[in-house]
């Protein structure tokens, strides 16, 4: 027989019969796991952004008296607050919020008609703290109260603590969902691998009987299940990656895919994390196949 007619060297294990539904389940679980990883990354990034946006700044409100002071008096009080803030150690800048900007802030709630313009809105002064610097807030509050009794210093600590709680909740929820999906994926991969081993028990017994070393038999199964699980879970993770790329494209095009939520697009570096899903699933299949085959062989004489 010529070399070309020679039968090819066959695989020790046959291709799985009826394994396609399990591959689909593994692909779907990998898709969900990759989405959960992406969501936890987005939540983490959003929480950090929220905190960075609010920490490092102060706001002083100067309330208009009920009877309504003359406009110049309120302007003087605002200038005084600005002066005090600028002279305070640790504060980088202090800027009064213009009446137009204040109107913009209330516009979503009150509208912008003429009546709103007549409302006695408080004056606002924004102050930025030098990064890393500490401001003596009680002393600053006392100084402001002494100079302008109707001033209120807000360091956003109330909002920050609530926002941090929200961000932490979102992050931990996504971690728990990720952990649950990872456990479910690992269980399915392990179940599929064990079921396959059960179906191939006759091959294990024959190879063992013919003098194959346990490591030879285990290697055949490890490779088989690692490759098939890697392929199925790679498809699932790739589909999840496409979802995040689509979100990125929508963001680039100026379309907000889900209102009120932070941007769902992942950075390129973050997309690399999705590769962990097929690798993790493949490793679980590899380890399950190895341990199951070696355990089965230990039971055979």
């Amino acid at each position, binding site marked *: 027989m010529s070399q070309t007619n020679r039968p090819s060297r*066959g695989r020790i294990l046959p291709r799985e019969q009826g394994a396609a539904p399990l591959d689909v389940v593994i692909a779907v679980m990998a898709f969900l796991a990759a989405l959960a990883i992406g969501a936890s990354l987005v939540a983490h990034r959003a929480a950090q952004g929220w905190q960075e946006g609010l920490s490092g700044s102060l706001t002083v409100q100067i309330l208009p008296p009920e009877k309504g002071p003359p406009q110049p008096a309120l302007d003087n009080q605002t200038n005084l607050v600005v002066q005090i803030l600028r002279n305070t150690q640790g504060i980088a800048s202090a800027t009064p919020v213009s009446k137009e900007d204040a109107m913009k802030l209330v516009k979503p709630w009150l509208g912008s008609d003429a009546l709103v313009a007549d409302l006695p809105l408080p004056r606002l002064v924004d102050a930025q703290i030098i990064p890393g610097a500490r401001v003596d807030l009680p002393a600053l509050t006392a100084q402001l109260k002494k100079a302008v009794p109707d001033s209120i210093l807000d360091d956003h600590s109330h909002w920050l603590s609530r926002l941090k709680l929200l961000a932490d909740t979102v992050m931990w929820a996504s971690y728990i969902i990720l952990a649950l999906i990872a456990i479910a994926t690992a269980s399915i991969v392990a179940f599929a691998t064990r079921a396959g081993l059960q179906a191939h028990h006759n091959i294990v017994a024959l190879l063992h009987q013919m*003098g*194959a070393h346990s490591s030879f038999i285990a290697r055949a199964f490890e490779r088989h299940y690692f490759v098939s699980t890697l392929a199925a879970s790679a498809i699932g993770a790739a589909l999840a990656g496409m979802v995040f790329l689509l979100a990125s494209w929508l963001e680039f095009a100026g379309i907000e895919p889900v209102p009120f939520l932070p941007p769902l697009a992942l950075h390129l570096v973050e997309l690399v994390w999705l590769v962990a899903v097929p690798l993790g699933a493949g490793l679980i299949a590899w380890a399950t196949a190895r341990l199951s085959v070696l355990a089965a062989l230990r039971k055979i004489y």
Partner: protein
Amino acid sequence: MVRFENVGMRYGPGPEVLRDVTFQLEAGSFTFLTGPSGAGKTTLLKLMLLAEPPSRGLISLFGHDLAVTKRSEFPALRRRAGVVFQDFRLLDHLSAFDNVALPLRLSGKHEADYASDVEELLSWVGLGDRMRARPPTLSGGEQQRVAIARAVVAQPDLLLADEPTGNVDPDIGQRLLRLFAELNRVGTTVLIATHDRALIERTGAREMRLVDGRLVELRTQRT
């Protein structure tokens, strides 16, 4: 080569299938194992194949007392024996060529080194044109010949065959017997479990008979 001393075997709490079996197979010997169905022939072969441990007694294989041999040494001992199973036990997803080549793959040989030997052997057993065929497409007799070729391809020190000519016509049976005799001539110890009286009479080899789990020596090898 093979030594059994007072070997007994029972499965679980059941009755003894083999009782006080004592015999020896010398290196290069040719022996038939006979007996009615259920007498324990297959169990005796399983003990020799290291497929089951005995319930009692001493078994020595290739000079190794199995009671004190490490389990890690068993694969090497198993590879020194070629086996023809009664139910063939071929791998359905592999071609006839790959099934026959399996023992050589297990011993770490490369295809380039054994391909021509496997092809020659398959031609010898009359399957030269069926190398690519998978077992489900082969007849019972063809599957049996693949199983025999697999058992002998690595030129084992010991050949154990359970009813190896049960499914083949007389001509092929003669040919297979010549193959066993040729292997025996070059040093392989052969033990064949069979009901085929004609086969036994033709060779005049030693015959051991199992009756109710006990071994009876009927005839020693003609010289």
